[in-house]
């Protein structure tokens, strides 16, 4: 018989263990450690997305617009507003009442256009805020760094504005997806238009932002223009955020080049183009030809910053608000009504990525990353602004129309800065997935 009044040491230990096990049992069996099949499985009535955008730094303009687009996408996903592209997206599984019955919540971070800061804010969103999907970035260096972090952590990364071939090339990851086009596609789309406008006997001088995006764009544009018969006189790397590019522009003046190709983006492109024009490059005659400037990757926000210096300058872009397809019109209408101005290409790709992710979850019937990966790989869709589009399974790169644009000579409004010269079909910019190397690896659920 147990003597409760005179407990033995052994008895106290046994009793303590039994009580401890009894108290712990309910939490052990219900805790995430046992129940979750994947990291940050939503348990409440919301699901959290992490919007990691540059709010400061060289690409802050794009970052601000990306954030606007994400907020609009969340609104539409939760059934608020006019629905935007949910009205045109095909096929569509989303019901307009959240995703898989859960309302979408979000958390934001500032990448500062720096890889380490971007990784830190993505890590915080995953670990502290429970973000199930990270999206954003206006720099390929940042996108590649965050994509790799998401792969390791076991969440999905839906890239924002990243144009380097490496993002879905040598640095591709199974958990990462890119809707935006890349440098190879810019070269393939631009080359025929440049040949028609400037001929095949040209000498090009490249000024290139010294990081992954700049390097791959320089390589792709060089390959494309040299295939036309152009000669590359010099390719000079410039530090990101250099501000004053005068010491890099002056050598162009008497280099013998008759085309300057600016592999710069954002604030760097605004500064380098403005300064190149101030140095009189556009007024020069070299080799008996008019000197020309080309900006392979354009955006309306950059055009706005550079003002009238963009007039007549060719470039390429992922999307433009003046497109007249139903998807673009629906998005421009929603965005314009919300913010009072048209969206940028960065806003467009971020909005589309958010909807595509949400739709993939709905189709997969789960938020589990490996299920979402399966739903996105090889997915074909339309009604999102660039015509029929394929999310290629081999490298998680989208293939769709690419726009060749030119700085508008006679803008009719403060937003009418770029004129779409040609919509290059997806087939003309498609390439073999193996040419940029890399391995997708396995998908990671994070547990």
């Amino acid at each position, binding site marked *: 018989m147990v003597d409760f009044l005179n407990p033995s040491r052994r008895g106290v230990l046994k009793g303590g263990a039994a009580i401890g096990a009894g108290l712990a049992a309910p939490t052990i069996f219900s805790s995430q450690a046992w129940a979750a099949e994947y990291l940050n499985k939503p348990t409440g009535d919301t699901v959290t997305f992490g919007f990691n955008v540059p*709010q*400061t*730094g060289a690409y*802050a*303009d794009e970052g*601000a617009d990306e954030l606007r687009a994400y907020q609009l996408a969340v609104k539409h996903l939760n059934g608020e507003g006019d629905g935007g592209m949910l009205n045109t997206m095909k096929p569509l599984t989303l019901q307009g009442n959240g995703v898989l019955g859960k309302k979408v919540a979000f958390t934001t971070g500032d990448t500062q256009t720096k890889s380490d800061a971007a990784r830190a804010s993505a890590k915080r969103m995953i670990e502290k805020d429970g973000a199930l999907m990270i999206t954003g970035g206006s720099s390929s260096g940042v996108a590649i760094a965050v994509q790799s972090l998401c792969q390791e952590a076991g969440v999905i990364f839906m890239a924002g504005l990243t144009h380097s071939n490496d993002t879905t090339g040598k640095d591709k990851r199974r958990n990462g997806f890119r809707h935006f086009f890349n440098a190879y596609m810019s070269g393939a789309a631009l080359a025929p238009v440049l040949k028609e406008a400037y001929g095949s006997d040209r000498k090009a001088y490249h000024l290139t932002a010294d990081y992954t995006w700049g390097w791959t764009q320089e390589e792709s544009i060089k390959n494309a223009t040299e295939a036309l018969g152009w000669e590359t006189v*010099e390719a*000079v790397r410039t*530090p990101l955020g250099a*501000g*004053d590019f*005068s*010491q*890099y522009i*002056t*050598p162009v*003046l*008497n280099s013998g080049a008759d085309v300057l190709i600016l592999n710069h983006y954002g*604030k760097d492109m*605004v*500064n380098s183009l*403005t*300064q190149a*024009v*101030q*140095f*009189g490059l556009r*007024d*020069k*005659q070299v080799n008996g030809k008019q000197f020309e400037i080309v900006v392979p990757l354009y955006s309306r926000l950059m055009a706005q*910053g*550079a*003002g009238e210096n963009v007039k007549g300058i060719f470039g390429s872009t992922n999307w433009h*608000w003046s497109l007249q397809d139903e998807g673009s*019109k629906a998005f*421009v*209408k*929603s*965005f*314009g*009504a919300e913010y*009072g101005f*048209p969206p940028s290409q960065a806003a467009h790709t971020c909005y589309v990525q958010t909807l595509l992710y949400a739709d993939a979850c709905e189709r997969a019937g789960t938020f589990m990353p490996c299920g979402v990966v399966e739903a996105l790989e090889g997915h074909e869709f339309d009604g999102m602004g660039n015509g029929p589009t394929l999310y290629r399974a081999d490298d998680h790169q989208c293939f769709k129309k690419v726009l060749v644009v030119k700085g508008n000579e006679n803008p009719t*409004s403060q937003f009418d800065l770029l004129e779409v010269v040609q919509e290059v079909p997806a087939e003309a910019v498609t390439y073999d997935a193996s040419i940029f190397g890399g391995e997708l690896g396995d998908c990671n659920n994070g547990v």
Partner: protein
Amino acid sequence: MDAILLQILNGLDKGGAYALIALGLTLVFGTLGVVNFAHGALFMLGAFCAVTVNQVIGLEQVTLDPNNLTPWGTPVEIREPYIVSWLGDTGHLILDYSVPVSILAAIPIMIVIGFIMERGLIQFFYKRPHAEQILVTFGLAIVLQEIIKTWFGANPLPQSPPTALRSAADIGVLVGFNPGEIVYPYWRLVYFVFSALVIGGVFAFLQLTTFGMVVRAGMADRETVGLLGIDIEKRFTLVFGLAAVVAGLAGVMYTPILPPDYHMGMDFLVLSFVVVVVGGMGSLPGAVAAGFLLGILQSFASMTEVKSILPGIDQIIIYLVAVVILLVRPRGLLGRKGVMEG
């Protein structure tokens, strides 16, 4: 030869900015003995004076055109600056010259900012160690840039030079080169001439006026000047204001070259401190000479021919020179004997 001349010109306009900031830093260090890490913020505040003036005189009257709709269904906005509707062509002219016009506003604003900064904070740190001065002024610089960021946002705000000065001058033909061989933007030439005039003005002020004589005497021997019954503190407050004006004007005129953002002061501050150290702490001619010298060296280091031999040299050249100077001649190029050598 043309490439060398062009890089010298680049170095001169960049060096002009370095020299103007370093001049103010040296004045403050030489007179007050304060290492002012908030000096770059004064350059940035000057630049934002230009932005503010541009925004104020460019205030627009917005009317809606109900017959013309945007793609999102609202009437198209027709904008016209008030100054244009009031003054017509004169309004256009004032808008076009908003950067030079900003100088008129920047001078009193920078004097007031300098006075508040010195009387409100820095005077309490005159007799404190340099480390404490650096900490407090660095903190002040961060506070100022965060205020600007909150007010104006994080993005750069491009400012245009006057239309007449937006293109480039064919200066090569003046010295016997073929037309088009040496062209250089008008505004950058204006900036170089402007910085030379301001530097000349400051030197003339210090050399040719009684006030300047007292300041120079105070820089050489503060105690003796005090014993002569001169209130040197009061004059030094004015010197701080002068340094603030010089940095502010450098910022105003630099806006068409580099669109201002909240961080630009910090970017220039580090370089300008290197300029002061290379020129010699407390030496005004040293600061000016080192400003131009380092500007030119930085431009040459960016030449493809140089970078092909020493990759990345354009990023480190200024710091490399500073290391060499500190090792070989710690007092700097034109520094006084004993300063930084103890």
